[in-house]
């Protein structure tokens, strides 16, 4: 009955008015919050003085990108339950960052994970790590830009490119003006908008398709299960082997530990207790919206399987908006679009602020430590704006599914940064030679086995699995851990290299960031722990090289 069609609001003025009003709100909040941004510390970590509830909401909305509204539902449509299983563990990001290294880096007063890498491993390693992080942040920002342009295309029917440039530049301007204090307050507001604009319209859609549990959409849709099983018996199938489910851990669970814009949220906390409370709020609100996303995907598959709704492959990313257009009044869809834009905006601000911090603090200030505060701040603003511009330019030719490129970036962070941070915080022996080799070789392997550079050199041949970096990270992440530990262990014992190492200051740094005032040789020095990590990593890497049977 419903043919593939041009999904658009018939009254674009309504949509524009709603989006315009939200933008105005964000500009005002950003302007007020940022009047006091006098130093780099204010710009990047909001003065290190953000309360737990605000910070928890901001963490959730920074993490919850436009993918919540656009990409995830498309991949649920394509991969069904395995993709839901993959998505669930993303909630671990902030809790694991907080317990494994976030509180230590907060105690150190770091702006970004790369700041820690510079103090721990020296300038060369930190610049390599920063370059990889800029690539990760740009890939991530690119995904948001594409999503924003697609949303405006759907909203107003304006061409993709026009929307990309006009709204892209407006958004980048807002982030540049707002800084982190503005971004944090706005991100908290955006989280509330995202939750309301996603869950309430979903309830209305569920009511329209006849579901009884419409009053609590995230979990109460089991009455649709029998009809779903009848028309699409395979929906709940796991489809893939345990190996596929295992590869999610190195690629995405560890990958998220290397994402700079998430870790930076932990550093904005006013103190360690507040950082730990923020992670509780984060888990609660993220679980709520994630569960609603699975429900939205479920309803989308249900509507296509039982209600005669047809969604072409090219429109899969727009599922959430299409469901609203079909089942809800137009003004509701306009609000949903405002929610989607908010989601993209909060993540994009996180990404661009990370790029600003990486370029001005981790590269320029590292190479030229004596530039004045004001100039450093100005470079930061320019870097944030330039990062936005680059992601706009890259979005001119977008990839098919926007989430795939974002998830691939997780793996790159997991290979090039996460091992350096984790091992660097917990093992005194880790040194700059190990860090440089791990980051460069691991990163190169990950890029080579991705389908983007040499399409014939891949591990599984299963497009989405290789594209999301699941297979590549399962090989490259453990290799990176092994190289870091083994190269450090050997170079620490080579007499010729001793003058190039900074053992004493490394030891002092590690004791200090864990909260100790003295130095004890037995602490953070376990050869057994390092050995176990090498053995487990080797087993995982070998498993990754064996046939995947896909």
């Amino acid at each position, binding site marked *: 009955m419903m043919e593939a069609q041009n999904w658009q609001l018939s009254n674009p003025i309504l949509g524009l008015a709603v989006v315009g009003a939200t933008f105005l709100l964000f500009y005002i909040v950003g302007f007020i919050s940022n009047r006091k941004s006098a130093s780099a510390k204010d710009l990047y970590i909001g003065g290190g003085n953000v309360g737990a509830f605000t910070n928890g909401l901001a963490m959730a909305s920074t993490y919850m990108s436009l993918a919540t509204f656009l990409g995830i539902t498309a991949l649920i449509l394509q991969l069904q*339950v*395995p993709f*839901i*299983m*993959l998505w*669930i*563990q993303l*909630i*671990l990001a902030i*809790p*694991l960052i*907080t*317990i*494994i290294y976030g*509180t230590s880096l907060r105690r150190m007063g770091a702006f970004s994970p790369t700041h820690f890498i510079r103090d721990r491993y020296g300038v060369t390693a930190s610049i390599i790590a920063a370059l990889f992080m800029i690539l990760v942040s740009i890939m991530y920002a690119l995904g948001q830009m594409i999503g924003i342009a697609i949303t405006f295309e759907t909203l107003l029917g304006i061409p993709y490119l026009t929307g990309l440039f006009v709204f892209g530049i407006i958004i980048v301007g807002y982030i540049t003006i707002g800084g982190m204090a503005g971004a944090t307050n706005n991100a908290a507001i955006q989280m509330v908008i995202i939750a309301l604009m996603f869950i309430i319209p979903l309830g209305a859609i569920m009511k329209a398709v006849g579901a009884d549990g419409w009053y609590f959409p995230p*979990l109460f849709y*089991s*009455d649709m*299960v029998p009809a779903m099983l009848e028309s699409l018996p395979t929906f*709940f199938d*796991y489809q*893939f*082997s*345990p190996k*596929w*489910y*295992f590869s*999610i*851990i190195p690629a995405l*669970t560890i990958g998220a530990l290397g994402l700079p814009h998430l870790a930076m949220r932990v550093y904005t906390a006013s103190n*360690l*207790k507040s950082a*730990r*409370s923020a*992670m*509780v709020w*984060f*888990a*609660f609100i993220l*679980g*709520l919206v*994630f*569960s609603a996303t*699975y429900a939205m995907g479920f309803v989308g598959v249900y509507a296509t399987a039982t209600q005669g709704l047809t969604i072409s492959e090219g429109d899969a990313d727009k599922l959430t908006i299409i469901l609203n257009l079909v089942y809800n009044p137009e003004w509701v869809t306009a609000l949903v679009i405002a929610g989607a834009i908010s989601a993209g905006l909060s993540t994009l601000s996180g990404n661009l602020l990370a790029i600003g911090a990486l370029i001005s603090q981790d590269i320029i200030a590292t190479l030229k430590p004596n530039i004045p505060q004001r100039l450093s701040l100005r470079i930061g603003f320019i870097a944030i704006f330039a990062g936005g511009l680059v992601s706009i330019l890259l979005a001119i030719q977008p990839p098919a599914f926007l989430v795939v490129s974002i998830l691939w970036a997780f793996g790159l962070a997991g290979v090039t940064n996460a091992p350096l941070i984790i091992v660097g915080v*917990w093992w005194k022996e880790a040194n700059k030679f190990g860090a440089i080799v791990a980051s460069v070789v691991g990163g190169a392997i990950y890029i080579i086995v991705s389908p983007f550079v040499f399409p014939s050199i891949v591990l599984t041949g299963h497009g989405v699995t290789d594209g999301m970096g699941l297979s590549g990270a399962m090989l490259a992440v453990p290799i990176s851990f092994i190289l870091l530990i083994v190269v450090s262990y050997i170079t620490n014992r080579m007499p010729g290299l001793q003058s190039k190492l900074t053992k004493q200051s490394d030891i002092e740094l590690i004791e200090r960031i*864990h*909260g*100790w*005032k*003295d*130095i*004890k*040789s*037995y*602490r953070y020095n376990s050869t057994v722990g390092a050995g176990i990590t090498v053995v487990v990593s080797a087993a995982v890497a070998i498993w990754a090289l064996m046939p995947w049977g896909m």
Partner: protein
Amino acid sequence: MKAYKKEVQFTVWMTVAFILVGNVGLIFSIFPVDAMLFGFPVMYIVPILMGWFGVFFLTIVAGKIGNRIDDEIDSENDALGVSDEVKDV
């Protein structure tokens, strides 16, 4: 020594617990279950519930223990005589 051991053990076991609770799908892919719960297949709804409420519960526990370990590190620092500070370097 006590607070250090606690810190390391807490981080290792808490990390393992978080990874397990967030990846219940992996466990079901090894040990499939053919049953229904609240009207959904168990293999669908249990990973979702654990990935929300299970993780939420663990963050509360992790926050509490983390704060207590910080206090213990502080009290070991306070017990430290100025004279030991240079010793054992």
